[in-house]
């Protein structure tokens, strides 16, 4: 009697440097430490049934990771998944779970859009904010925005524009002026050719905007006029964060 759960989880702090390749064993060991009856695939080298819809680039933080876990025996989700969360390395936490009924649509189908956040250090804030706003407006007004993606196996030209659903440049005030960050939030489609925050940066930068010093995958789900609705929890993460609420 198997049981499937979908979870939303975080990958922040030190764990943002764990590669997609290493992630499976990190989860397997945490599941074994928490002593949960994860199901295993058949075959010569059985793998735990933990699936991730897509890989997060190494170094990128996320509060919007998802996974589907298949258990070989029923679990007590509230306490068992809390135990699993505690067994994961610091920086990886399970924040939401949902049991999956038979016939549910695939997890990837529920993650049609991603809210990304690119942040720059507290320098050139006025200029940078204005420039990012202008470039964002221009990008949204254009039909195409081709950039070159550099890869070890050769350069590729991709069109960023079809993936862009919404863009907003803001400044996030810190407690001191020196902590304030310039922030670009973007809603990108997941259901077309993959466009990453690095590609978006390339499209906006035109050679005069530094690479963001931090990139965060905030949440994934459905694109809504005001932001992105979390596929599991259902709440909407706004495109333009409510600065007052954050400060409070």
């Amino acid at each position, binding site marked *: 009697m198997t049981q499937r759960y979908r979870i939303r989880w975080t990958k922040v702090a030190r764990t943002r440097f764990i590669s997609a390749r290493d992630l499976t064993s990190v989860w397997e060991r945490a599941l074994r430490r928490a002593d949960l009856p994860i199901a295993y695939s058949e075959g010569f080298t059985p793998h735990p049934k933990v699936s991730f819809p897509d890989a997060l680039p190494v170094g990128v933080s996320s509060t919007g990771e998802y996974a589907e876990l298949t258990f070989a025996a029923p679990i007590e989700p509230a306490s068992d998944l809390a135990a699993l969360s505690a067994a994961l390395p610091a920086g990886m936490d399970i924040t939401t779970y949902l049991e999956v009924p038979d016939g549910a649509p695939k997890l990837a189908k529920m993650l049609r859009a991603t809210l990304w956040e690119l942040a*720059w250090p507290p320098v050139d804030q006025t200029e940078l904010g204005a420039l990012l706003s202008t470039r964002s407006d221009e990008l949204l007004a254009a039909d195409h925005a081709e950039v070159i993606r550099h890869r070890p196996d050769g350069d590729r030209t991709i069109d960023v524009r079809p993936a862009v659903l919404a863009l907003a440049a803001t400044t996030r005030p810190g407690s001191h002026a020196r902590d304030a960050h310039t922030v670009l939030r973007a809603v990108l489609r997941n259901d077309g050719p993959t466009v990453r925050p690095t590609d978006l940066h390339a499209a906006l930068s035109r050679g005069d905007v*530094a690479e963001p*010093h931090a990139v965060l995958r905030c949440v994934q789900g459905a694109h809504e006029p005001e932001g992105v609705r979390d596929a599991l929890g259902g709440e909407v993460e706004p495109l333009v964060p409510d600065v007052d609420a954050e400060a409070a």
Partner: protein
Amino acid sequence: MLGTAPVSLASTIPARGARAPYRRPGREALPAPSCWSVLEPLLPKVRKPVQYVGGEHNQHVTAWEAAETRWLLCYPDTYEVGQPNQGIQILYELLNERPTALAERAYAPWVDLEELQREHAIPTFSLETHRPLWAFDVFGVTLPHELGHTNLLNLLDLGGVPHRSVGRSTEDPIVLVGGHAAFNPEPLAPFIDAAVMGDGEQVTLEIDEVVRAFKREREPAGPLEGCDDAEARHELLRRLAAVEGVYVPAFYAPRYRDDGRLQRTVPTEPGVPALVPKRTIQDLEEWQYPRKQIVPMTETVHERFSVEIFRGCTRGCRFCQAGMITRPVRERRPETVQRLVEEGVADTGFNEVGLLSLSSADHSAIGPIARDLADAYEGTTTSLSLPSTRVDAFNVTLSNELARNGRRTGLTFAPEAGSERLRAVINKMVSEADLLRTAEVAFAEGWRHIKLYFMVGLPTETDEDVLAIAELGIRTYEIARRHGHANKVTLSVGGFVPKPHTPFQWAAQDPPDEIRRKLSLIRHAIKDHRGIKVRTNDPEEGVIEGLLARGDRRVAPAIERAWQLGARFDGWHEMPTLELWRQAMAETGVDLDWFSYRERDQHEALPWDHLDSGLDAGWLWEDWQDAQADQQLDDCRWSACYDCGVCPGLSIEHDTGYTGGFSLPVVPSRLGGSDELPITPERYASGP
């Protein structure tokens, strides 16, 4: 470019004279600054950044001010190679269990990060809290082999610590080395403060106590408060030298003959021992470490929960330094092994268990241990493995047991030499009949691939002996083919490097051209047998290892120069450093031929003669003579003592064959030429 972060530098390393506040014991200390905030933004630019972040399950973090002594334990290679090391993990746990001590870990940064570290003034750092090397009291470095020496110098330099011992003050850490290569620390003599020989458990705690007492005495109102710095440091080194098993190179000097050969290494400091003994823990049961093993968040060379099932080895293979210097054999009880495994697997979540030792199938209760663990994990995803040097059918039986949860793929055997004669020379007691019978059994029982380990360049070796490797491979392959056309045989052939404290310590090493010629003889001989694969290392690889293994203090300038020329990671294919070394040797006048390719005689003193591994010098010489006369020596675990010198003086003998719990008769392993090896030896079937 808009939004460019200003180049950030880690906090400047305080000059000598300003470091003392960070080093004070307990709450008096200023916390050492972490470099994390500068390091973190750089990590996306380097390969495998997760190796630098720490935060693994079972890491131990202690507040700086909560400890009186602070250790940085280091394996001078990359994290993926060094993290599984058991020695570091044992000492890490032991020190952190101590309420007054703190231990963190460091590994060598790969060259990409080193470049960024130098650019951003990031010192050698600890993984746990990213604190700088210069602030710790002891830099404890394990040297499992010789190829980490340049990395050691580099880590010191990067860590704000003078790489030569004479340049250090009490505001620098004590640089302490241990591990197998510390049995000849002479090439490192100018760079280290002390070396520890033998088992590290007890002696590390004793050293910690010495450092703790010394630091207290340096505090205000303490007896050493106003003491001149050089005098105080000398006092600390004297106290360390008084700990049994600790060797302080600065207190000894070599005397050379006119022809350049070593005459003797003599003490120059009153009161230090003329012969420094190695340390030996007597009962492994009292030292059940490491229990809380680090669980890496990235691939490492051994990802498993490891339990050392015994320490030491009595096989007497004459080439094997580990086997010689870790005597006598001390076994862990089967029930302890079982408990450590079960607790460790539950705690770490590892899905593989390694039963470690130099030859794990030789544990007197390995049968029951393997059976009970296989029972406990049958039908689970937990797998078991053990390294073994035995070449007999029992090994196959054992492997069958361990492979209950998986498919029977590859088995490895180590005959080491191709001919019966040469196996007698190296004292590897296995006959060709044993080996072929074992292969027959293995393939008949469904194993698909046999890997055979050999060496070339062994003493007395002729081309006939070398060709015998190919012949043995061909005969094994013929057996393999009879049992299935897809079955495979791999010959793995390495070049022999003579090591200190072995009967072969007097032997000449083969130069790389000679090794290359011998390898090509093998390749040529098997060229018509496409199913046999030959794997070899680059013959040049043994050159640096050989020089550093048996070099003396005159080799030190070459290490220093090679490091300055850029040599790092000398054991890595990606880092061909041999040309840098050749240049360094030329510039410093180190004659490789003289150090490595020359046979020594009985009258020449060896650089490690004043370091006592427990082996009787006379016995080693006799065993070297026996070797050259093709004389074998029995395994003293099962047969009469031959007075190698290790056991007398210790209040122990080989500690095997426990009674109570599992009672197993200690019966001789039936190696050494018997044609009648039972597939299931009696001792395997036995139980309570």
